[in-house]
């Protein structure tokens, strides 16, 4: 029997507010010593009262609007009760019946077709403390407790690991464009859980759901889903049944591992948070937030195609990261050739970023410098091959391309006499190629020009080199 996987995703993203969700402790705890971003409110000491961070609410509404959600007129917080040492209060303030946003969607592309993935809800809650297990004891750092956390729940519309990976990638791009979350999975500011069940393809049977946690990279999301789908398929095919469990992803071993058997539904006894009055989201407030939205990746992609004549593919690649898109537009705005800039960015600059493990924001290349580099090629000062080397030096030194070309003597050799000497040597060294050329196989000229470029370490002007070769070879006919 053929099975299909029914996959839903829950994404938690820490919000980039300056202070915590319900108190004024600083929200950025990355460099803070343990338990130094803590106060009686986020520890839930008796007699304290939480107060809602207005900016956090606005960030969630921004996200909801970007995901085409319905924004609630009335919304409120709820208490989710459970005991665990990462929860100082003994409950987490979350949302239950009246989330801020619901019923939206995010579009992905499957086999060249647009597929809409439903967003069931986007709500606001608080993060938990960090636990460190030593074996003998558990240690608690409450700096993270109370950091604003947004939960984005998809409908079970995803079918494959690749679809899930793409959904997550696009979601992160949107969050970064909005500036509401860093979306950094490695550092845990964006976390993801998936629910997977299998059913006979084409039916609407409800399979048993398995939850997979501990997914901290895009790759692990895809791999975990593929692994888990296969595991369940084998179980079903051998006549066994899938048990409702929570699994963890073991990145090192590339497999899901049983974390906990769910015998009954979790009993969190949600009730409206008595310490927080409800929220009324007036139309004016929501419209003000809507007006503050930046241009989103989809719109920007379409504009890049329209205004700069880029292919949909290139426009998609450039707009996937807001910093990259900004860099491209800065180059184009300086009068740089837009298509050329797109090629340089998606080619050499991405290659250098990968090789050195740098993000666009960490690259020392300024838009004006890429313009200058492209200018040097256009004016024939350097060849494209040399320009690639120059770009590497630019990343290493932060120097301008003009300065690098001068310091390192990389300008093209346009001296006809010098090139003629090189051409004679190439002709002498490659009698077979010369014979082929003379026999009428003219494309061999490219090979000979290549040899000249090699002999001059890429500094020969290729057009001039070809002309000189042709002239010399014509004499030999």
């Amino acid at each position, binding site marked *: 029997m053929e099975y299909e996987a029914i996959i839903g995703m829950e994404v938690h993203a820490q919000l980039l*507010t*300056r*202070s915590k969700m319900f108190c*004024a*402790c*600083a*929200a950025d705890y990355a460099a803070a*010593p*343990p*338990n*130094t*971003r*803590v*106060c*009686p409110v986020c*520890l839930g*000491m008796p007699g304290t009262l939480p*107060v*809602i*961070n*207005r*900016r*956090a*609410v606005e960030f969630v509404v921004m996200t909801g609007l970007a995901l085409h959600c319905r924004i609630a007129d009335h919304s*409120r917080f709820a208490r989710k*009760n*459970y*005991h*665990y*040492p990462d929860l100082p209060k003994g409950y987490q303030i979350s949302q239950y019946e009246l989330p801020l946003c619901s019923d939206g969607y995010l579009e992905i592309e499957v086999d060249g077709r647009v597929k809409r993935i439903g967003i069931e809800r986007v709500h606001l809650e608080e993060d938990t403390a960090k*636990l*460190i*297990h*030593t*074996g*003998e*004891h*558990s*240690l*608690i*750092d*409450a700096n993270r407790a109370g950091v604003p956390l947004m939960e984005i729940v998809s409908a079970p519309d995803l079918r494959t690991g690749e679809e899930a990976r793409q959904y997550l990638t696009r979601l992160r791009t949107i969050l970064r464009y909005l500036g509401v979350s860093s979306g950094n999975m490695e550092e845990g500011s964006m976390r993801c859980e998936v629910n997977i069940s299998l059913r006979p393809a084409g039916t609407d049977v409800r399979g048993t759901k398995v939850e997979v946690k501990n997914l901290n990279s895009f790759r692990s999301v895809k791999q975990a889903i593929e692994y888990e789908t296969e595991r369940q398929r084998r179980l079903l095919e051998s006549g066994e049944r899938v048990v409702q469990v929570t699994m963890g992803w073991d990145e090192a071993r590339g497999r899901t591992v049983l*974390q906990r058997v769910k015998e009954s539904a979790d*009993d969190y*006894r949600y009730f*409206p948070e*008595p310490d*927080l*009055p*409800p*929220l*009324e989201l007036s139309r004016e407030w929501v419209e003000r937030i809507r007006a503050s939205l930046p241009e989103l990746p989809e719109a920007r992609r379409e504009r890049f195609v329209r205004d700069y004549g880029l292919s949909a593919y290139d426009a998609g690649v450039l707009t996937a990261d807001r910093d990259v898109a900004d860099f491209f537009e800065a180059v184009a705005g300086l009068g740089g050739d837009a298509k050329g800039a797109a090629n340089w960015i998606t080619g050499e600059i991405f290659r250098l970023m990968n090789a050195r493990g740098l993000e666009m924001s960490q690259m020392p290349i300024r838009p004006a410098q890429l313009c200058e580099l492209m200018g040097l090629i256009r004016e024939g000062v350097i060849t494209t091959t040399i320009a690639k080397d120059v770009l590497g030096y630019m990343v290493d030194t932060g120097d301008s391309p003009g300065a690098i070309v001068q310091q390192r003597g990389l300008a093209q050799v346009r001296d006809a006499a010098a090139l003629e000497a090189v051409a004679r040597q190439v002709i002498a060294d490659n009698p077979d190629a010369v014979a082929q050329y003379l026999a009428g196989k003219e494309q061999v000229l490219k090979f000979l020009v290549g040899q000249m470029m090699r002999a001059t370490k890429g500094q020969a002007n290729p057009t001039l080199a070809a002309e000189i070769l042709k002239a010399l070879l014509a004499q030999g006919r």
Partner: protein
Amino acid sequence: MPLSLQQVEHIAELAKLALTDEEKERYRLQLSAILEYADMLQRLDLDGVPPMSHAVALTNITRPDEPAASSPRDEILANAPDHKDGLIRVRPILE
């Protein structure tokens, strides 16, 4: 509908309370009386009355996103059962 003993035990488990048999029975009766009262409220005709979650008619009580100083760590740790290297120490949690 009075609560069953099993329900009381379930609630105690969720609240991490260890109850004696005598306490279970006492709380069973007390909690049942509270639920009975809630049952009475359930029977009221409330058609056309909007649901409410809070007794005080406040909305949109928010604060600006401005950080301020946190508490001194010594004060925080003074309330902890135990601590080590600035971290609160508790019994091991089995994952």
